[in-house]
C-alpha cells in the first residue's frame, strides 16, 4: 500500500481517529477563544490532562491483559492523600507506603490470574479498600504537597508548555516500551492469546503481576502529579478518574479484548476528554453538562470507528 491509497484505507483512519478528534476539539476551543492559542493558554488547558493521561495509561495496562480496573480513581485519590501527608512529613514512610501499594497491585494481578477471578468485582472491592485507607489518612480535605513535586509540575520550560512535553514524552516512552520491544509483545500477548504465551514457555502469572504493578506505578505518578497541581488532597479527589480513564483508553483506539491497545491514542484520548470539559465552559454551557459532553464525544468517536470498521468489512 503506497501513497494515496494508504490514506484511504480504514487502517489509517482508525489510527488517525484519536488525533483527529483531539484536533477537532482543540480547533473548536481556539475558534471560541483565540487567546488560548498561547504558551500560557495551552499550559492552562492541558495542565489537568496530565494526571488523567497517567491514569489512562495505568488503566491501559490492565485493559491490555483483558481486565478492567474499577479502582483506579480511588487508588489515585489515596496516592494523592499519601503525597499530601506522609510523603511531605515523613518521606521514608511515604515512599514505603507507595511501594507497598505497588506490591498490593502485583498481588491482585496474581490473585485474579490464579483464581481466575472477574477483575471487575475484585477491583470494585479494592476501590472500597483504597477509599477507606484514604479516609483514614486524611479524614478532611487538606495536607500539602511536597515542594519538590510542586516545583516539578509547575516547571515552565522555554517555548513549549510543560503539559505538552510531558504528554508527548509519556506517549512515546510507553509506546516504545509496549509496541516496539519484545517484552511489550509478550505483555500484549497475555491479552491476545494467553495459551500461546503459556505454551511458548512464559509465565503468564509473572507477566500479569508485572502489568498490574505497572498500573500501580502509573497510578502513583498520576496521584503525585495531581497533588502537585492541586497542592492539597482529599479522599475523593480523583474518583471520576475511574470512568474517565476507561473512556480515554477506548477513545484512543484501545479494544476491550485481545490486547489491542494504543498508548499514544490513550494519551490523546485523555487530552480530548479534558479539553471537552473546557470547550463547554468556553461555550458558556453550564458545567452540569461536562460529563455529558464527555460521554457524547466518546459515543461520536465510537460511532466513527464503527463506520471505519464497516468500511473495512466491505472490502
Amino acid at each position, binding site marked *: 500500500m503506497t501513497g494515496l491509497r494508504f490514506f484511504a484505507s480504514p487502517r489509517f483512519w482508525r489510527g488517525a481517529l484519536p488525533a483527529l478528534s483531539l484536533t477537532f476539539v482543540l480547533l473548536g476551543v481556539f475558534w471560541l477563544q483565540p487567546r488560548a492559542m498561547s504558551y500560557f493558554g495551552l499550559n492552562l488547558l492541558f495542565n489537568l490532562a496530565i494526571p488523567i493521561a497517567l491514569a489512562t495509561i495505568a488503566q491501559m495496562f490492565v485493559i491490555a491483559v483483558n481486565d478492567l480496573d474499577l479502582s483506579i480513581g480511588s487508588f489515585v485519590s489515596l496516592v494523592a492523600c499519601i503525597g499530601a501527608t506522609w510523603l511531605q512529613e515523613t518521606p521514608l514512610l511515604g515512599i514505603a507506603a507507595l511501594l507497598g501499594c505497588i506490591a498490593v497491585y502485583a498481588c491482585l494481578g496474581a490473585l485474579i490470574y490464579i*483464581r481466575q477471578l472477574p477483575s*471487575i*468485582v475484585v477491583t470494585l*472491592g479494592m476501590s472500597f479498600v483504597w*477509599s*477507606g485507607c484514604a479516609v483514614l489518612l486524611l479524614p478532611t480535605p487538606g495536607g500539602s504537597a511536597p515542594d519538590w513535586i510542586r516545583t516539578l509540575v509547575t516547571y515552565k520550560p522555554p517555548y513549549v508548555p510543560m503539559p505538552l512535553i510531558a504528554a508527548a514524552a509519556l506517549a512515546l516512552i510507553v509506546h516504545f516500551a509496549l509496541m516496539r520491544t519484545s517484552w511489550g509483545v509478550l505483555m500484549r500477548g497475555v491479552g491476545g492469546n494467553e495459551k500461546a504465551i503459556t505454551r511458548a514457555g512464559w509465565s503468564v502469572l509473572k507477566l500479569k503481576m508485572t502489568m498490574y504493578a505497572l498500573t500501580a506505578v502509573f497510578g502513583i505518578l498520576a496521584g503525585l502529579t495531581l497533588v502537585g497541581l492541586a497542592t492539597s488532597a482529599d479522599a475523593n479527589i480523583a474518583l471520576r478518574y475511574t470512568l474517565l480513564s476507561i*473512556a480515554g483508553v477506548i477513545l484512543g483506539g484501545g479494544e476491550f479484548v485481545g490486547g489491542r491497545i494504543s498508548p499514544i491514542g490513550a494519551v490523546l484520548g485523555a487530552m480530548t476528554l479534558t479539553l471537552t470539559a473546557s470547550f463547554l465552559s468556553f461555550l458558556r454551557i453550564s458545567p452540569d453538562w461536562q460529563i*455529558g459532553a464527555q460521554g457524547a464525544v466518546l459515543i461520536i468517536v*465510537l460511532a466513527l470507528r464503527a463506520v471505519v470498521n464497516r468500511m473495512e468489512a466491505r472490502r
Partner: protein
Amino acid sequence: MTPIGAFMRQHPWSWSFLAAFLTWAATAAYISGTGGLALASTALSFSTFFVMVGIGQMFVITLGPGNVDLSIPSTITLSAVVSMMVMGGSDAMILTGFLAAIAVGLLVGLFNYGLIRVLSIPPIIATMSSSFLIQSSAIALGRGVKIKPPETLEWISTAKVAGVPILSLCVIALAVVMAVVLNRTVYGRSVTAFGQNTRAARLAGVPIERIRYLTYSLSAVMAAVCGVFLAGFSGGSSLNMGEEYLLASIAVVVIGGSSIAGGNSNVPGVFGAALFLFLLVAMLNTFGAAAGLRLILTGLIIVGVVTFAGGRRESR
C-alpha cells in the same frame, strides 16, 4: 457429607443467607435485647433497594462475559429526579410520576441497547458512555431543585406491618416472580442460554437481539423504579443517590452465587447477599469501626467472598 452441606453445595445462594444470618447474629448478640429484631427490620428495609437493582443487574450479567450495566447508578438518579418533578409532592400525581420513571427506564434501556447494537461495542463501554449522558441530564435537571416526595409515596416506602416493611414484602413478591421468570419462562431460559453459549443459542433459534434488548430494558426499568422508591424513602432525590449502587448491584449478584461469567444465575442469592451487605455495614457500625475502617473491611470481605467462591468454571 451432611444433608445440610449437600444442600448448600447444590444451592450456591444458601451461602449468602448463612452469611447474612451470622452477621445478624453477631450484631444482635452484641447489642442484646430486642435490638436484634429492630435490626432485622431495618435490614429488610434497606436491602429492598439493593434487591431491586440487583435483580436487573443479575439478568444482564447472566448474558455472559462483558455484559454489565454500569448505567444503573445514573438511571436511579435521573428517574428519581424526573419522578419527583412530575409528582411535585402531590399524591394525585404518583401514578403519573411512576409512569414517567418507567419511561425513563425504557428510554435508557433502548439507548443502551442501541449503542451496543449500532456501534457494536462491548456493553460495558456502551452503558458507561450512556451513564455519562444520563448523569449529566440528572444533574442539569435536578440542580437546586429539592422536591419532597408525596406523602403516600413516603408512607409506602417506609411503612411497616408488624415490623416488616411493606416495600420489602413487595420486593419479596417481585423476587419470586423474577425467579419464575428466570427459571420457568421462555425468556428466562433464553437469557441463560445466551450466557452459556451465544452461538449455540442463536443456532437453536433464540432471538438473540430481542433477548438482549429486553434484558437491558429490564435492568434500566428496575433501576428507575428503585430510584422512585429510594426518593420516597429518603425524602427526595439527591444527585449522588445512585453512587453506591454501582458496587452494590454487582456485588449482590456475585455474592449471591450467580456466575459472573454468565449463564448460571439465581434470584434468592441476590436477596441474601443484599441482606448480608447491609448487615455487614451495620455490624461494623455497631462495633464502632471508623468510617475508613468500615470501607476497608467491606472491600476486603467482597474480595474475600469472590476469591472463596471461585471464578469462571472454564474459559470458553
